[in-house]
């Protein structure tokens, strides 16, 4: 099976090359036989990559340590689930995994749109196959998981215990699923440019796949944050590290596209802009892979540095060049047919939303590559850290939050004063009340107050929308509350799913603003000693050290410290933090010791205890951190995921295409009631 897998990989390489060549030729020569052959070639590539993947999984699960990849990523005593996920934990395996997802996506995308988008299929198939060809070639020549050792080790080296965590098992595949999904909209955008079929037909496919990419990137990013928070012990979840940034960039451009596409569907505007966003999302995904894999930028995520970096750089510049050429030669086909009518309109709000999202993406990209740029320009490498990203992104983020409330409610084309009053009076008042109450309670940080006022405002708009919708159904269809709610969401998935995503965003912003009130305390405690401290809410905490204990498990040595916790005199229990040294079956140490963080989570506050070190038998060095509202990051992420699922869920009865310019004949007032989604 392993041998079959290895051979399949090489067959897949030939298949992808064949499919790319004949699909493009078929498109250019308008030869249907060639196009069909290209499509079959893509399907065959998927089958071959699937076989290759089964081969690698077989090698892992049968623990064939003669393969270098197997020997260096698993050990015999690891839990089976992590042996399975070791498929994507190393470079070679993750390249194969990319190819597997891309060929699967490509097959699904082409199979489902073959009859609908006849003109686009040859070019889209060719582009998908060309991207696949690149990934498979990189796997075959530069990062082959089937390379054999010329001796047979008794055991492998195992997986870093920090990676043996459920979050880490599913975080990378989610990011890959998100990254790779940007390739499908890219392929269809390229197809639309090649065939000059730049009307509405390519947008449906592109929107669905962008949504899928957005969905998986959201999950992947949030899981990565969660893993960093519970596993790495530095008390935070986002460090503006280049690797984190590179997953954030395509998320931002995807989000921008999912909004601006609505303007094109309803009003026929932003045609150039949308093509550019689709293309840029894919290029950023490739660029992200390049910077994380090549090591050109310093990061604490040190993936193996290897020559795939040069391949990615070449591919990136090639793809960029081709796209610039294609867009440049087709500008006339992309002229908008309608102009912006008023600054006080949904179009304008969405335009600003796009401007801000792309502005954030640009700032993040700039900060990420600044060490390279400054070295080119001046010869000195200058790095920027979290202060840079926060200074720029906090104001932009708050502007975005305000637009999250304004965009969905303001009328299309031109909002009237009565529209503005009807939609915004109550939410705006609610936002002001929230800020006033917090101020009265003693919160005086300006950014945080603005953030919570806007959170209140956006929450107000969302609640108002649901309330109005449910009330309307209750009166028209005489339904009770719950059925009215379910039908409301079910019949307008894009609109109300979008609101649910926005609710998740509000929770994230509320949690981010809480970071302003985080406090850290470094303490040294002997057995029985106490540490008294106030948390950011003003509660009095007491920690009493229960002493340091050591224990030896079959797979690890553990040093643990327990603290008895009291809040305002009430006992809350014991919080424990550990240092663990993992061992192999011969009691040799594996990796560095790792820290097990003690976390007590409530809706208000996380109490986060890290054992930094131990002196003598009973003196513990500890860091005690109070992290307000962190749990809302995970809840907000979950809510966004639910909202995304609602939006993506296939609509049972298909409405007539929303594209087109029917909007131009509707009055602004009627427009305000039209459905809108993410």
């Amino acid at each position: 099976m392993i041998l079959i897998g290895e051979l399949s990989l090489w067959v897949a390489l030939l298949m992808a090359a064949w499919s790319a060549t004949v699909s493009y030729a078929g498109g250019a020569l308008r030869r249907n036989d060639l196009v069909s052959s290209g499509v079959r070639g893509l399907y065959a590539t998927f089958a071959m990559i699937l076989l290759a993947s089964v081969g690698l999984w077989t090698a892992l699960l049968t623990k064939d340590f003669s393969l270098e990849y197997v020997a260096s990523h698993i050990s015999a005593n690891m839990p089976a689930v992590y042996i399975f996920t070791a498929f994507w934990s190393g470079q070679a395996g993750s390249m194969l995994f990319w190819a597997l997802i891309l060929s699967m996506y490509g097959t699904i995308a082409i199979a489902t749109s073959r009859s609908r988008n006849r003109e686009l299929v040859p070019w889209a198939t060719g582009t998908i196959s060309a991207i696949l060809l690149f990934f498979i070639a990189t796997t075959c020549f530069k990062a082959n998981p089937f390379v054999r050792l010329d001796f047979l080790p008794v055991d492998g080296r195992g997986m870093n215990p920090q990676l043996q965590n459920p979050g880490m098992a599913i975080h990378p595949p989610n990011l890959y699923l998100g990254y790779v999904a940007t390739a499908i909209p890219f392929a269809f955008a390229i197809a639309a440019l090649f065939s000059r079929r730049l009307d509405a037909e390519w947008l449906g496919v592109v929107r669905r796949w962008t949504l899928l990419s957005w969905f998986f990137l959201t999950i992947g990013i949030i899981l990565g944050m969660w893993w960093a928070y519970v596993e790495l012990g530095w008390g935070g979840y986002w460090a503006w590290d280049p690797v984190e940034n590179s997953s954030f960039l395509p998320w931002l451009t995807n989000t921008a596209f999912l909004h601006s596409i609505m303007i094109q569907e309803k009003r026929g505007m932003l045609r150039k802009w949308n093509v550019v966003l689709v293309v840029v999302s894919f290029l950023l995904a490739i660029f992200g892979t390049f910077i994380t894999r090549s090591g050109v930028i310093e990061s604490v995520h040190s993936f193996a540095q290897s020559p795939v970096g040069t391949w990615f750089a070449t591919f990136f510049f090639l793809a960029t060049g081709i796209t610039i050429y294609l867009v440049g030669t087709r500008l006339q086909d992309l002229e908008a047919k309608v102009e912006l009518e008023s600054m006080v309109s949904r179009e304008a709000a969405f335009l600003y939303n796009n401007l801000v999202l792309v502005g954030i993406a640009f700032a993040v990209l700039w900060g990420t590559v600044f060490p390279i740029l400054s070295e080119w320009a001046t010869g000195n490498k200058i790095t920027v850290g979290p202060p840079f990203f926060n200074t720029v992104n906090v104001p932009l983020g708050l502007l975005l939050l305000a637009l999250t409330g304004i965009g969905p409610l303001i009328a299309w084309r031109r909002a009237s004063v009565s529209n503005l009053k009807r939609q915004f009076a109550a939410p705006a008042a609610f936002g002001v009340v929230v800020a006033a109450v917090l101020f009265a309670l003693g919160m005086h940080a300006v950014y945080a107050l603005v953030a919570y006022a806007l959170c209140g405002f956006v929450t107000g708009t969302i609640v108002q929308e649901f309330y109005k919708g449910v009330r309307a159904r209750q009166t028209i269809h005489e339904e009770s509350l719950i059925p009215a709610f379910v039908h409301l969401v079910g019949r307008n998935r894009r609109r109300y799913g979008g609101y649910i995503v926005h609710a998740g965003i509000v929770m994230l912003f509320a949690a981010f603003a809480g970071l302003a009130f985080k406090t850290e305390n470094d303490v040294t405690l002997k057995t029985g000693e106490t540490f008294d401290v106030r948390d950011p809410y003003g509660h009095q905490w007491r920690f009493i050290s229960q002493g340091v204990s050591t224990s030896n498990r079959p797979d690890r040595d553990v040093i643990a410290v327990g603290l008895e916790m009291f809040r305002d005199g009430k006992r809350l229990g014991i919080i424990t933090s550990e240092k663990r040294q993992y061992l192999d079956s011969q009691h040799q140490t594996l990796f560095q010791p790792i820290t097990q963080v003690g976390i007590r989570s409530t809706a208000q506050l996380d109490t986060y205890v890290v054992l930094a070190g131990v002196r003598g038998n009973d003196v513990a060095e500890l860091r005690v951190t109070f992290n307000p509202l962190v749990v809302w990051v995970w809840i907000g992420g979950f809510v966004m995921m639910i909202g995304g699922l609602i939006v993506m869920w296939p609509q049972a009865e298909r409405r007539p295409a929303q594209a087109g310019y029917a909007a131009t004949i509707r009055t602004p007032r009627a427009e305000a009631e039209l459905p809108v989604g993410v």
Partner: protein
Amino acid sequence: MKPRTKFLIGGALVLSVAGYLMASSIKDTGVYYMTPTELTAKLQADPSFVNAGVKVGARVVPGSVQRAAGGKEYAFRVTDGSHTFPVVYRGIAPDTFTDSVDVVVSGRMGTDGTFQATELLAKCASRYENAPQKYKETPGYKAGARRA
């Protein structure tokens, strides 16, 4: 004024504020990233550079790590092969910090030639990829590495 023009003015305003924030915060918070050799050369050319905050990427000299009796204070030496200097760091060191790892220390060079670090990041080359040394010495691995 046409709405399009108004939008463009508004957009330019947003972007120029963002641009200003970017430029000013790079100026205020950007720090030089150097190797020990570059830092030494810079200090010789410009002695006042001791006051500038820098980041230095280097490798910890094996056996040089000393933990002060007081606990969260570390003294060690870093090198890039040609230049070596001592570093003092106060705070919690990451789990990955140990002999021979690549570290990035942020702080400033003291007049006594000891680097006072306020931040310590440790990179472990084998953190995600774990090809062990004993395999790396084998002919099979080397052949694989040449192919890879």
